[in-house]
């Protein structure tokens, strides 16, 4: 044996090496610490927290019934009775914004949850198994992307009654392709990494490798794309509702509140009416983007302090 024939290699005494860090920090604490360093992300999180809270507690926070029309007060400017003014039918804008937040956020979260689920499964399978399966799935993704989705959306909305559920379904069905490509890319590179090879040589099953080894390491980009996706869907819902194909009145959503402000006379004469729904959309989407950015850094184990 080599041991008896040759002197041992020199070096520091073999055992033990320097002790491992004794105060080990749970991974979530580390992530939280990294997240807190990003001031914009913290601001975004606070904003989102407030908006979500406002949406949840809308019935208690709203000063008026959001669908109560007082025609005498139509287009009333912001003031004592109407903190953010009133719309063209004399409904309180603040109350409608609060209830509209419920709809906008619900549509945003639910459709992104759906599209992330579809996209992750398709992308994971394509990226991990590769080969023909990958080619078939990705051509399918290409096909979905090439659909003229706006026209299809409009057609679908005219066939099915435009309701919250159909909107969620449509956004989920058309929104997953980006996630699928992203997840596929992550899986393509991670499946060749040494820790995945090690798991394979140890006889860990494919399903477990996908969900327990690769997915947690691909979670960062997925969550980032999800947060950005919520912002995107809120914009999309606003656009559809603005065209009158989204949430139908009298249910308030930020998008359909803008719809009734299309009239240039209203836009110029009663600036407060379109301003506040627009501002809400802007702040919410921005907040989601900031949070997404912060999460990206927090999830990356390689970026140290």
């Amino acid at each position, binding site marked *: 044996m080599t041991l008896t024939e040759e002197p041992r290699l020199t070096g520091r005494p073999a055992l033990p*090496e320097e002790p*491992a860090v004794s105060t080990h920090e749970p991974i979530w604490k580390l992530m939280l610490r990294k997240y807190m360093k990003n001031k914009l992300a913290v601001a975004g999180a606070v904003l989102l927290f407030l908006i979500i809270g406002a949406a949840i507690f809308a019935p208690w926070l709203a000063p008026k019934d959001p669908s109560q029309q007082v025609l005498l007060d139509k287009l009333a400017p912001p003031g004592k009775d109407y903190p953010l003014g009133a719309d063209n039918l004399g409904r309180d804008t603040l109350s409608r914004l609060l209830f509209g937040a419920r709809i906008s956020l619900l549509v945003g979260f639910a459709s992104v949850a759906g599209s992330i689920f579809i996209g992750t499964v398709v992308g994971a399978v394509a990226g991990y198994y590769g080969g023909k399966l990958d080619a078939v799935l990705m051509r399918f993704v290409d096909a979905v992307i090439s659909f003229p989705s706006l026209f299809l959306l409009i057609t679908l909305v005219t066939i099915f009654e435009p309701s919250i559920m159909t909107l969620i379904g449509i956004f989920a069905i058309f929104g997953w392709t980006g996630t699928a490509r992203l997840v596929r890319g992550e899986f393509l590179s991670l499946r060749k990494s040494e820790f995945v090879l090690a798991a394979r040589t140890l006889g*860990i099953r494919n399903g477990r490798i996908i969900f327990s080894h690769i997915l947690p390491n691909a979670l960062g980009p997925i969550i980032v794309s999800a947060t950005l996706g919520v912002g995107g869907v809120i914009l999309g819902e606003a656009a559809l509702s603005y065209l009158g194909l989204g949430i139908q009145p009298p249910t308030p959503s930020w998008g359909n509140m803008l719809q009734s402000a299309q009239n240039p006379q209203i836009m110029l004469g009663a600036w407060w009416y379109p301003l506040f729904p627009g501002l809400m959309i802007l702040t919410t989407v921005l907040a989601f983007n900031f949070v997404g950015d912060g999460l990206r850094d927090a999830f990356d184990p390689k970026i140290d302090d």
Partner: protein
Amino acid sequence: MSEIGLIHSLGTEETAGRPRDTLLEVKNLQMHFPVKTGVLQRVTGQVKAVDGVSFTVKKGKTIGIVGESGCGKSTMGRSIIRLYEPTGGEILYNGKDIAGLPEKQLHPLIRREIQMVFQDPNASLNPRKSLGSALAEPMKAHNLYGSRQKRVERIEELLDLVGLHRSVINNYPHEFSGGQRQRIGIARALVLNPELVIADEAVSALDVSVQAQIINLLEDLQEKLGLTYIFISHDLSVVRHISDRVGVMYLGKLVELSDKEALYEEPLHPYTQALLSAIPVIKKDGAEVRERIVLKGDLPSPSSPPPGCIFHTRCPYKMPMCETVVPDFREAAPGRQVACHLYGEPPF
């Protein structure tokens, strides 16, 4: 490929007369990757990463595989452990050919008995798994050490073996140094009590002082557990230290295979001679003992290897026949095989 069928039939005949202490016998192993081009992904060529490698490994011994980067040594290791499905040849593990076995049949045997220590201690551990859960997972996958208590005991035993403190069981990879991570990588390779461990550049990414510790650890473990190693490295000194036999790879083929002492003292193949002449030798009076052989040119592409002897484009002793005739990998001296026309009579 009609050759493969022939080799298979040869293989089964010889298996019967296999010496008892042979753990692994690799016969004419080939790992060719198709080169696909264009939209239709037509196969337009082959990268012959491993092209007809044969060697045997005895139980409890270490075979070192050296070669420059791109020579196919890592691909060979990954084919043997069946991360790849070889395109030809046989891998006889305890006499059983595992080269074509589907994953399901690999699971109960090969996925326990052959393990690998990887090169990069930063990339070979899942950053999201604590040490404990990383080591417990394979036990669960093979239904071993059935209770949590037993698994913890096994993990503690492994930590003792590789020289890590038991208190680190809940730590994550980022909390360890490079050397410690490599110890974890070794512990993970040992979880399932393997027979054969393939170390693929296992110390190349470490500092020299840590390299020495890890090599000593590998040697200690070999003695304690009776492990068999395939030690793949580009580092000739490290291979010399740890190996019993050494194979030299060039462009997907073994060009020389020999006992360590003979190979390092009297290299036969011109490529081996050139490699060894690159090891600096320090003598007290400062005189160079060996003449440095500097190879001209680059490693040819494995997708279009040169005809005849693969080394003829860079060989200082090139003869006319080297350009056309492929040299056999033949016994040039007892226990020494070499693929070079300089040794032995040409086959015609």
